[in-house]
């Protein structure tokens, strides 16, 4: 094959295969970012854009008074992109989730989001 065509094809393949981000960012979360849920969740789980190191990643959840409501350390669930932390029984109100992730290449990222548990 013509070398120019080979290089063009390779570059094209690289673009098609290009992932979205080079660091671990929040992709989806449960409860979802900014959502209101009718039933209090028993855990917060974050799906990251790439694998994270659980030993050096944290998820903390605070209620409206700023008190932590998570129990134990975050752990991986079914693969290295899903990090979860268990919660104490939640009462209705708004909760703040702070996450710090360390990707497999040791780069750190962080973020915050809220969710609300609706009163019945």
């Amino acid at each position: 094959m013509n070398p120019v065509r080979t290089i063009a094809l390779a570059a094209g393949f690289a673009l098609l295969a290009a992932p979205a981000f080079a660091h671990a960012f929040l992709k989806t979360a449960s409860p979802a970012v900014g959502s209101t849920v009718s039933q209090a969740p028993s855990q917060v789980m974050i799906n990251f854009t790439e694998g994270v190191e659980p030993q050096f990643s944290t998820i903390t959840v605070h209620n409206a008074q700023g008190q932590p409501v998570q129990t134990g350390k975050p752990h991986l669930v079914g693969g290295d992109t899903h990090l979860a932390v268990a919660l104490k029984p939640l009462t209705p109100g708004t909760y703040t989730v702070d996450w710090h992730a360390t990707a497999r290449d040791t780069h750190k990222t962080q973020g915050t989001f809220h969710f609300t548990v609706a009163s019945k």
Partner: protein
Amino acid sequence: MPTFAPDGGATLVLARGFAVAFLLSVSGTLTFRTVVMPRTYPRMTHDVIERIERGLLRWSRFSVIFAGLGLCAWLAAVTSYLANPETIGDWMDDLWTVLIDTSFGHVLLLQVVLLCATVVVLGGRPGAARWRLGLVLGTAAAIVEVGHSHAYAMAKGLSFLEVSQTLHLWAAGAWLGSLLPLLLVVRLAPPPAACLAARWFTPLGQLCVVLLAVSAPVQGWVLIASTKAVVHTAYGWTALLKAGLFGVLFGFALLNRYWLAPDLRGRNPELARRRLIRSLSFQTSFGLLIVVAAALLSQLRPGMDMSMPG
């Protein structure tokens, strides 16, 4: 002007650069000894061959040991960055956690094992087979470096970016890592034999330059993601600096191959030798700068992430 704030600060960049520079040196020295030198030894006396072999062996071992020390320094810097330990005791505990429980630690351990195996293989007076085995092990230690990259962290399986990064690392090692061994040969060998070594180094150098020239833009295109990010991010600026340094290195390579090395067969070979040694020294220094720029790139947030918070 964008802000240059590498993850982990300058210490982490320098520790990483130190480790990578010597890993590339291991790979390049062994490639040069195994691929280039056997073609030039027939033109040299036994005495010169002995001196060159001793020099290359000493530099190979030195590079392996300093690559290992560089990896240790990098591990220490990464541990401090990830865990923020308050006491030496905490730091020691965290060091162990990073080594055993993280992907970074596993890749680093593999590199250390490969370097130890390289030292063992190059013990005593290695023959051709042991030099070749050392080349495989030492090059593997350098190429495994891809496991510390953005490409590896992003990949869900084997990705095109990882393949590109692997070729880039191999080519960087074979080219930049061969410069000091070539300098050694130019210094020790009779000028006509040194000229021959430079000539036999050319096909390898050309292959490396092509691989670097193709793989670097591919990685840049994927990781920087937009022309705006080239101009407005520290990552983009550093990538441009690296490309500029690559141009300077290429210029030195042309100068050495087509002007200075042929002069070794001219009327004043001693003057030509001094000029070539000086040129190779400058080229090696620029090569080191490229490695530091690459280490800085690895610790910066790529342009593709600029739309994300944090």
